[in-house]
């Protein structure tokens, strides 16, 4: 073991502090610098919509499956959107096989919260025939390489995939109560592009504080209410990605500390 590794193992706090004092991270990246982001859409051909997002080494795949379901009695003119995050054991040595862990569950709940409260997608658009048919979108987010900043990667992936969704046109015959799906014609989903990162931010602020205090070194940087980003409306996908980079700049505390957790 080199002396640097020994230092890192035995005195992690002072090891990281020494880098932070010089506004650098152990991998040479500046504190305000974001890792490169790569986004690919349509990576899973069997899914209705899909994307692969890489933030540094964090790799997340999102596939959206659409199923026809009966709307809930409470909201007869609304469809469903069900996000689910999975962290595979291959993504990190810390993750074991078995039922989803706290991290995966927390991220799923977070995505659900963001999708429902941001109004990114009007659930009414998913309704085919009120009280009879509606789309149920299963958004499965699989993390195949976990190197921090899962929230951002998962959210970007899900947003990218949602814009990639092509749903077949469904015609409903009320007399015979028969449904036919015309598979050749497709219909893109109407997505109101609200910047999800604003949401991400306000949700994430709690996370920021917690993680920071765990590492003990940056807790003083925390200022209540200081982490809020104004929600911006973006038009296209590339712009969204670029905007996200800027926002992530402001979110650097979190990136940094999550990075610390994994490095």
């Amino acid at each position, binding site marked *: 073991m080199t002396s640097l590794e020994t230092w890192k193992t035995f005195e992690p706090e002072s090891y990281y502090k020494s880098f932070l004092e010089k506004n650098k991270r152990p991998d040479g990246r500046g504190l305000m610098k974001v890792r490169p982001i790569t986004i690919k859409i349509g990576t899973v051909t069997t899914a209705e919509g899909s994307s692969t997002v890489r933030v540094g080494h964090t790799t997340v795949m999102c596939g959206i499956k659409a199923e026809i379901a009966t709307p809930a009695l409470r909201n007869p003119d609304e469809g469903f959107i069900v996000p689910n995050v999975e962290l595979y054991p291959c993504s990190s040595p810390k993750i074991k096989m078995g039922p989803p862990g706290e991290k995966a569950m927390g991220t799923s709940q977070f995505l659900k919260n963001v999708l429902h*409260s941001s109004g990114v997608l009007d659930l009414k658009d998913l309704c085919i025939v009120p009280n009879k048919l509606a789309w149920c979108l299963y958004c499965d987010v699989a993390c195949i390489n976990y190197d921090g900043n899962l929230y951002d990667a998962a959210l970007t992936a899900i947003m990218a995939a949602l814009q990639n969704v092509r749903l077949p046109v469904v015609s409903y015959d009320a007399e015979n109560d028969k449904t036919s799906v015309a598979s050749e014609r497709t219909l893109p989903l109407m997505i109101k592009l609200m910047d999800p990162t604003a949401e991400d931010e306000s949700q994430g*602020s709690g996370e920021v504080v917690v993680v920071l205090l765990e590492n003990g070194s940056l807790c003083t940087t925390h200022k209540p209410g200081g982490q809020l980003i104004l929600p911006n409306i973006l038009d296209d996908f590339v712009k969204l990605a670029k905007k996200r980079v800027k926002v992530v700049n402001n979110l650097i505390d979190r990136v940094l500390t999550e990075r610390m957790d994994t490095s």
Partner: protein
Amino acid sequence: MSKHACELNFLSRSDGSALYSIGNTVALASVNGPGEVKKFNRLYNRAYLEVSYSPSTGQSMIGERALESVITRTVEQVILVHLHPRTAVNVTIQEMQSDGLELSTSVNAACLSLLDAGVQMKSTFAAVTCCLTPSSTILIEPTAAEMKESVAVATFVLDGQALNVLSAHQEGCLNAENFNACLKACQTAAKDVFNFYRQALEKKYHTCNEIS
């Protein structure tokens, strides 16, 4: 603000417990520890904290697990975990009755049960929920019905000294202005909650035996 009520040492067998209610939401929290820890949870430099939350009806689902995770991370930064290495602190929260304020009630119940157990902490903490109505007024500690009508619901967990934010949870969209207004309102309300904590503990310690 809704009425807060609490009863300390509600359970006889656990190391500390508290029954806490805000309005019609009631939660019972019990603390055991620092005690024996399972081998795979054992941490060499600090205590292991486990929070489990069970809803009043049905099984614990993903929502409850996320709630647990929020409470765990909040409590974790307040307890002086490094004082008790290789131990476990278990916090169990049972929702007794719900009127929308599960998060703030269970956070407050957890705090009082930790105080009752005498677990060493950096400071006290309290959660306050507020909601923004469509007419842009802020309601502190709304009922479930009021929350349903509202644009956004935000919960802040604040610490007992400087009223800094320990964690924040938000549903629905808020702009920066409203967010800050919500935070201000919650900070004001939190002062009353901390006064309430103090009264509860003064009551507990004033009835105790003194020999001098």
